[in-house]
């Protein structure tokens, strides 16, 4: 999984790249972080509305929310 220097937190987005031509990205909002690195799992609300516990693979990228850097109290 692609990571940045920031720890993953609720409010960050997770993006799963498509594996086949024409396959859309899956995007979800991280609602919570379960476990600790390197076995972190995320409770995610996906763009189709369903929620799941997700352990990402190498095809996942975390996009950190800008809200927490500008207004930490705004995060969930």
């Amino acid at each position, binding site marked *: 999984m692609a990571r940045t220097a920031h720890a993953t937190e609720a409010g960050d987005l997770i993006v799963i790249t498509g*594996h*086949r031509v024409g396959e859309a990205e899956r995007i979800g909002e991280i609602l919570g972080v379960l476990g600790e690195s390197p076995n972190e799992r995320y409770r995610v609300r996906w763009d189709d509305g369903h929620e*799941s516990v997700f352990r990402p*693979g190498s095809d996942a990228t975390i996009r950190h929310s800008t809200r927490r850097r500008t207004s930490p109290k705004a995060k969930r």
Partner: protein
Amino acid sequence: MTAHTPPRSLVQQLERASIAYELINHSRTTTAAAEARVLGLDPHEVAKTVVLATPDGFVRAVLPASERLDLGKVRTILETKDVQLATEEVLAGAYPEFELGAVPPLAGGDGDRVLVDRRLCENEWVVLEAGTHEQSLRLRTSDLVELSDAQLVDLSQD
């Protein structure tokens, strides 16, 4: 185990393997076809696991929800005519951590042999019951085969 909580042994096996997976809550379903419906998936994307009793122990046969198990093919693969569907009473004793009818191909049991129908490999990902009737596990089909040390075979009726 409570509803929406997968068996610990299953989660531990997934964590040890460090693979990508997803646990999806859904309304209670008692068949793989119904599980596919509530998840909005095609039945061939969802696997069902049938536990078989044989002289050499339990065998878990995994095939698409859209297919029917061919016991004749299983008997040929296992080279024995003594293959029967495990009864609910037997399942309850052998897999106490799983709900009846929701035994997954992974975890539990005691080194059960696993047979996976080749048709499942047509999809990169597969969804199966996570030991409960209210939660599904989604993982790569290749990871399922590797983790369960499965034999890829033809299990479905023609």
